[in-house]
């Protein structure tokens, strides 16, 4: 594998050796150290987007997709052999990029601290290959097809956002002769084997699954990482340091997406953005979830395996996947096994997964229930963590609930199934009366606590109203309107 002195990143078209830096060094700090101070640190935990930069990622076909990510979360070693563009690389004061021009003339910057990050997030959307004028612009999509979610991970404290939205919606199509547009038609850089060492610490990117599993078997303390959207926060905010970090995010074996007659199998190292595009509407419950999950910047890094891997009781995927009756496929040097997600979590941030095992994929059985919903209760609509998350999947036939699967997050030490509520629904007529009774049962599920996100009483109330809301949305003859 490549030795550390060979680790290099192409930044704004120029190859830059990474040099002798500790493996926990983030892309953000490294860029600032080499003099590119456009990307800023606003929070160091993926929340503000001031650090946003574009990286060249493989498109779903053979091309490249300019993808905006939070540079404060990912270690610089993870970009070995990759291409990065920062605000400095998009344009200059005398020759502004179209995105920079619109932001500048419309008052899109005041203090300017958030601006380079906004510019990068906006530029990635500007170059999105499938962006095309929207015949019917709506609250989150401009007439030029600009998806406002592209900016959901960027905070601005000064402008109030209106001029930023106007700048985004004023952008024309990307010019075909623009070098960055041309770059999208070529394949993205391949993942390269990386072995970056500093003292007795190392960041390692194996290029095949067997090597990765071997490393984990040999080094029980090794930390496997994918998008680093969780691990990166541990590193920057809580001072976590690992002797050996093993990168999984480009392992081809973990990046497959299969759809067969009886299951959808989603590779653990696919990012949520990729999964969303790959499923193309096949799993409506997940389509409802994705836009509510973090921000696009995070979804461009966060993987499905990482979301289960954290074992967090407030992760958004587990409640949804529980409602979908999903299974987890685990793999180690010793072989593969499949565990129902309902049996996967064993305690607070604990699971049946052994340290030498990796999540290979998540399997969703088909067919899917007709009535599904994902309710995320949070303070803010874009980019917030759930105080309560509810995944719901119901089969209703001839007016009777045949099957109910309800997953809950935020109300216990692990994600749980609302089994008592499921029983209160199953076999009963799909009526307001049944729903009201079941809602009272739902209120008592789990053991919610008071914390800074919500009170226990509110969490319980939200469990109760989740069913009422589902019914109001899905009862055949009673909409949400009275």
């Amino acid at each position, binding site marked *: 594998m490549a030795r550390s002195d060979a680790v290099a990143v192409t930044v704004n078209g120029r190859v830059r050796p990474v040099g002798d830096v500790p493996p926990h060094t983030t892309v953000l700090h490294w860029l600032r150290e080499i003099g590119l101070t456009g990307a800023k640190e606003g929070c160091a935990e993926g929340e503000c987007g001031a650090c946003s930069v574009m990286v060249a990622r493989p498109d779903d076909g053979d091309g490249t997709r300019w993808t905006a990510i939070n540079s404060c979360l990912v270690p610089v070693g993870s970009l070995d052999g990759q291409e990065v563009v920062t605000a400095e690389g998009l344009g200059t004061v005398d020759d502004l990029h179209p995105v920079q021009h619109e932001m500048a003339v419309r*008052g899109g910057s005041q*203090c300017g601290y958030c601006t380079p990050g906004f510019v990068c997030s906006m530029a990635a959307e500007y170059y999105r290959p499938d962006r095309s004028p929207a015949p019917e612009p709506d609250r989150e999509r401009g007439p030029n097809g600009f998806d406002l979610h592209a900016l959901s991970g960027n905070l601005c404290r000064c402008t109030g956002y*209106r001029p930023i939205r106007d700048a985004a919606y004023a952008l024309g199509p990307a010019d075909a002769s623009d070098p960055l547009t041309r770059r999208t038609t070529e394949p993205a850089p391949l993942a390269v084997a990386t072995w970056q060492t500093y003292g007795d610490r190392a960041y390692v990117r194996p290029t095949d699954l067997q090597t990765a599993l071997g490393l984990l078997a040999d080094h029980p303390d090794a930390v496997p990482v994918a998008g680093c959207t969780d691990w990166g926060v541990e590193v920057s905010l809580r001072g976590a340091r690992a002797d050996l970090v093993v990168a999984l995010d480009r392992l081809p074996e973990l990046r497959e997406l299969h759809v067969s007659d009886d299951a959808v199998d989603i590779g653990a190292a696919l990012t949520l953005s990729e999964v969303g595009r790959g499923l193309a509407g096949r799993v409506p419950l997940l389509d409802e979830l994705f836009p509510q999950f973090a921000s696009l910047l995070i979804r461009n890094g966060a993987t499905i395996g990482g979301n289960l891997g954290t074992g967090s009781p407030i992760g958004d995927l587990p409640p949804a996947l529980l409602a979908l009756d999903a299974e987890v496929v685990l793999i180690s040097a010793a072989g593969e096994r499949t565990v129902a997600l309902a049996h996967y979590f064993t305690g607070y941030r604990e699971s049946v997964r052994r340290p030498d095992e990796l999540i290979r994929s998540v399997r969703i059985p088909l067919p899917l229930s007709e009535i599904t919903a994902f309710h995320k209760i949070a303070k803010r609509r874009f980019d917030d963590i759930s105080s309560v998350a509810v995944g719901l999947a119901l089969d209703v036939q001839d007016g009777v609930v045949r099957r109910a699967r309800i997953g809950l997050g935020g109300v216990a030490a692990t994600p749980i199934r609302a089994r008592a509520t499921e029983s209160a629904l199953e076999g009963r007529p799909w009526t307001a009366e049944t729903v009201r009774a079941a809602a009272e049962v739902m209120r008592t599920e789990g053991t919610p606590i008071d914390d800074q996100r919500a009170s226990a009483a*509110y969490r319980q109330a939200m469990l109760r109203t989740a069913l009422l809301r589902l019914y109001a949305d899905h009862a055949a003859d009673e909409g949400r309107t009275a």
Partner: protein
Amino acid sequence: MSSLSERPTNPVVGQEIPHESAALHVTGTALYTDDLVGRTAGVLHAYPVTGGHAHALVTRLDPAPALHVDGVVRVLTAEDVPGINDAGVKGDEPLFPSEVMYVGHPVAWVLAETLEAARVGAAAVEVTYEPLPSIVTVTEAIEAESFQGGQPTVRRGDVEAGIARAAHVFTGTFEMAGQEHFYLETHCSIAQVDESGQVFVQCSTQHPTETQEIVAHVLDLPSNAVTVQCLRMGGGFGGKEMQPHGYAAIAALGATLTGRPVRLRLNRTHDITMTGKRHGFHAQWRVGFSSDGRVEALDATLTSDGGWSLDLSEPVLARALCHVENAYWIPDVRVNGRIARTHKTSQTAFRGFGGPQGMLVIEDILGRCAPLLGIDPVELRWRNFYTAGQDTPYGMPVRHPERLATAWNQVLTSGDVLVRRAEIARFNATHEHAKRALAVTPVKFGISFNLTAFNQAGALVLVYKDGSVLVNHGGTEMGQGLHTKMLQVAATALGLPLNRVRLAPTRTDKVPNTSATAASSGADLNGGAVKDACEQIRARLAVVASGELGVPAADVRFEDGVVTGLGGGETTWDELVRLAYVQRVQLSATGFYRTEGLHWDSSTMQGSPFKYFAYGVAASEVEVDGFTGAYRTRRVDIVHDVGDSLSPLVDLGQIEGGFVQGAGWLTLEDLRWDTSDGPTRGRLSTQAASTYKLPSLSEMPEVLNVSLLEHAHEDGAVYGSKAVGEPPLMLAFSVREALREAAAAFGPPGTSVDLASPATPEAVFWAVEQARSEHDERAHVVEGSPGREPEQPSPSAEPMRPSSERVQPHVRSGV
């Protein structure tokens, strides 16, 4: 029209131009203090040693283990301070404390070759604490009578008589939360010492002069040995008015002791846990209304949560008391104020500076009482507006109250308010699980520092031989567009195109003794000073031109770089400048400005502390989801008074940004302090961006229409403009009142609901539940005369001193 406010023909002020640094911002090339680290050789990094106690004595501090950490160079402690060990000007903010006053209070700082080494070093410093009892909430402080500073009262008439006169008397209490500034750029200083011992501190500060003074007193140096420069800030909002000084002093101390540049940058967690915020307030009140809904009397006691030290709490309180009536005439008033001392961060300036908290009290009262009075809130507010000839409770005439009425009517018309309210009524009648409401609220906000002495500014304008102009002034740029406006003022005053004028970063060795860039006064004050300097230069050049063109100096006109003599002849600016140099005419000038006509007596809380009032009106429509309490802001219409705008794009940005920031304070941003008795007592549990949520694009109103009030010339300010930084924040009251009315719409007509502040989805959900509850408690407002008298200041309470705004450090060090 005054000569200060009069504009020449074709002025550069008033042109709609982008921020002067916009092109630098968007290309990532604008430099902020921390961007200088890589451009400075041999920088050491500072990291704080902090503990987890809300209140404790430091019984032992052993830095030795840190010195064994690879890369650690030095640990700074109290013994290292040659001068005064204090980060403020009031003597109550020890820079290195022996008594920890809040969770995260730094007791020492570690300097190291890398940030990583400094962090590890800080963790290695051994500190032993002896925990002491702590006070965390305002209510605890009120019970324990833990107060600090003066306890002023604004009084007019006879409040008992007013209450007795009233047809309806209501009594209630209200508590509102504070707000974290969350400027995107956290506090940062880089200090260096040159060969002569001169200390140079680059600092993200709104108040370079005071930063300079604190650095000097900590190092025991005269002010002329310390220079502070602020390139620009990544946001300030008041959070960098008093708070940067101590950190700058630590960096400077480290630099003098090690001889190396020292960088101190707070990470976000440190910034949130260590620096002051907007004050939360507690209010007890009773109010009397006439039978037709006119406010007869207001009797209130406001207690602000000052945190551990006095900081700017006294002037913040003074401004709260001076704004408690907002836009409404109230004949009989008694409003007391006091400052709780709690074991929390030292609360400080934040956009509005107490004004928003004061105004929120009356808006909350009107919002809660309107349904109980059976009067439409829009009508109730309108009926109580100030009219011509009336004075504020502190005795200042309210000039131009008709502008408020104009703005109000304009919003009602352009916002189609009547039609939309009818639509909303129809929507609500047909939707069980979602309700909408539209509320309209006014803003009246006084402009000037309450303390008269601060209302002065200086500038230094340099014209070089090639005709190019460099402007220095005492104000700092934090995104508010002050530099843009100052360029426009200078170009206007000199009759030059904008591109001939440049602005230099703010430095204390260019313009001394400046006031903070605060109180929205930056453009008024510095604009006056820049204009003064430019006019001196222009007058000198006019004499030169007069000789050259053969016309009297009074007949020389400067416009767009061309100098014309009335009745014949013209030359260019560049040519004239060259000529002036040859004739040995001085091409630079210092300018000075002081606001005329202000007087304020803080011991009686009477006077005319403000040059003028800025007015605004907002109408906001929201939709609330009955299942969750989640809401959206569907449409907002604003008419705001900025006088004759100096820079319309900048002003529009201030209005919109202020509005959204205000909405954040009132709806989303949630400071949660741990009030339990456990080991984490006093800890701020929302001390990161993941738990403290700012408005994002998803909170933006779907439709936002902002217009500037027309015919709004302000005679008393530079080129007829008005200040704009703070007032728009309070336009967001309309969102909060709309949420209240939407929540009430889930109940029967006439429902009054209490709404917590911030009105998070959870808070709105509980308001909806209150409205829906069968046994209508008619809110927690109690009707009955004479009501409950709010607590009065104790006879032994300290009065507000005339100097309460601040004590100058040289006065202190002489004590």
